[in-house]
């Protein structure tokens, strides 16, 4: 089972371009708001018409600009869960779900049961909580036995507590269904929780596609690096022997094994930054930086802070974490092997 997308959809102010193959897996489409994420889902569902390209399920075209094929939404087999759910306010929960499962009451019962909303069957959507609405929307989308599942920001309308609960259940459901599923989020952490792979989209273009772990650890550009939660420090690279020297905006220098030149982004995960317990005496250790400690947060066993312009994350039981005091100065070390160098804004060259 595979959903193939390759299309361009002009959408002022830019063109949304999507090229993606989704097997029986969950793919997250992650990007800031206004990146064209919802447009991609609408095109797959048949609610928006691309100007060029092809959308096909298992080789059967749903849309093909070349041959003029364009199936109406009701002729495609998609379950679309809208952002804010778009439940029919004039119909009960049961009738909402039954809307997609025409003359199959057994299917409706099964879905109400499976999503644990049987007791709400006679309620109107307005009386439900966010989490309950989300289950109803899922049940309704699944009622038609879709062959593709599309979810638009399934978690954004939920409060933190419900969100955590739904995440787990949604992951199980998606694994059970084993359908090509695309879900949209502006938060990369949702992608980590729910998806096998993720595609980062910005300005209508997909920047990088890959397994969620590899996007965070091996971003190919500064945008993807920042979106996946990494530090991205602007610097100027000068080739130096086998590697390069990076000069940060404040003049401090680091060495990395990658060969690069010009303006580049230095990428490192907050968890990979090492906090030094004591200020170095004598010679400055390799890749050590000094900075003011701001934004210190101690939450349970985790400590988060910003040292200079570097976000740092460490465990409270690490003795070095004691060196982090708000308003004080601290030293951090950026291990060369944990640093990725990415081009900045299309300029700067990085050899791979």
């Amino acid at each position, binding site marked *: 089972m595979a959903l193939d997308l390759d299309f361009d959809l002009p959408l002022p102010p830019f063109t949304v371009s999507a090229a993606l193959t989704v097997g029986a897996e969950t793919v997250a489409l992650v990007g800031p708001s206004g990146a064209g994420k919802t447009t991609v889902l*609408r095109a797959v*569902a048949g609610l928006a018409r691309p100007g060029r390209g092809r959308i096909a399920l298992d080789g059967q075209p749903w849309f093909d600009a070349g041959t003029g094929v364009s199936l109406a939404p009701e002729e495609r087999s998609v379950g*679309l869960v*809208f952002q*804010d759910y*778009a*439940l029919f*306010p004039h119909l009960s929960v049961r009738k909402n779900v039954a809307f997609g499962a*025409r003359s199959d009451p057994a299917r409706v019962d099964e879905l109400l049961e499976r999503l644990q909303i049987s007791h709400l069957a006679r309620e109107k959507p307005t009386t439900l909580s966010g989490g309950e609405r989300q289950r109803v929307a899922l049940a309704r*989308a699944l009622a038609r036995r879709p062959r593709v599942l599309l979810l638009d920001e399934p978690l954004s309308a939920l409060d933190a507590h419900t969100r955590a609960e739904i995440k787990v259940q949604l992951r199980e459901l998606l694994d059970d269904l084993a359908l090509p599923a695309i879900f949209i989020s502006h938060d990369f952490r949702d992608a980590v929780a729910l998806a096998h792979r993720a595609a980062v989209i910005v300005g209508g273009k997909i920047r990088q596609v890959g397994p969620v772990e590899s996007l965070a650890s091996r971003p190919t550009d500064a945008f993807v690096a920042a979106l996946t939660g990494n530090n991205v420090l602007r610097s100027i690279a000068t080739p130096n022997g086998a590697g390069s020297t990076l000069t940060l905006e404040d003049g401090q220098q680091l060495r990395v094994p990658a060969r690069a030149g010009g303006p580049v982004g230095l990428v490192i995960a907050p968890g990979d930054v090492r906090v030094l317990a004591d200020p170095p005496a004598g010679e400055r250790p390799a890749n050590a930086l000094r900075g003011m400690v701001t934004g210190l947060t101690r939450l349970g066993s985790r400590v988060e802070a910003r040292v200079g312009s570097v976000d740092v994350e460490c465990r409270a039981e690490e003795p070095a974490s004691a060196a982090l005091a708000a308003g004080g100065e601290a030293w951090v070390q950026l291990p060369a092997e944990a640093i990725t160098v990415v081009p900045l804004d299309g300029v700067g060259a990085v050899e791979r």
Partner: protein
Amino acid sequence: MHLPAMPAARRAGFTALLALAAGISLTFLALPVVALFTQAPLGRLPELLSDPVLQEILSVTVKTNLIANALIILLGTPTAYLLATRHFPGRALLVTVVELPLVLPPAVAGIGLLAAFSTGGLLGAQLQEAGIVIPFTQWAVVLAITFVASPFYVRQAIASFEAVDPRLPDAARTLGAGPARTFLRVSLPLAAGGLVAGWVLAFARGVGEFGATIMFAGNVRGVTQTLTLGIYEQLDANFDLSLAIGVLLVILSAAVLLLYKLISSWRSISTSTSPFRLSRSLPR
């Protein structure tokens, strides 16, 4: 906090001025209605209302308005849905065409209908060939009512269909419903409150229709004479009957207005189109 104090006398004077203006306008607006009820021989009302002349007038009014309202709803609803949901060049112009009768003087509507449907008119030759005569028949009353009253319905219907969250019909389509089923099961029920409100206004305008009807259909008792035309004719012949019809129409109009207000407040409470945004902000 210190505010520059307005002298108490000046504040009271301003309020008195407002009250005076309001008093004059309300008196003026209520006066004809009050006069109608005080001048009408209320004691003889049952007798007057059972007058055979009035029975005929009532029968013409009910018949023509029923047909006109059916035409308005059956043709106006799809028209409104089309204009509300499709965007095409010239749409604004079509909406203006729909709304034009709203601002057209009734006499102009009457002369326009004559210019279109009379023997020498725009469609005169074709109608004559088909053996159809419209002016000064009951159909002329129906067309006059339909012409002047339909914008009240169609305008409100367009607004009601536009107010339906567009994601709901989209959702229906992805759930396997074709455009017709989506219209019947989703758009129509969600716009229903607004459609009824629009229809109430159109109905009131239709029953009150006078100018276009008298020009296009004439004032023939038992054929084209409706309640408003009846008032006009009985003015000299039987003033008391005129007053009685007036009382009848005031009661009908007040009932219609009340109904409209009830529907409007019910709609604003139930906000059929998008309850999500409203309730999401409520603490749970």
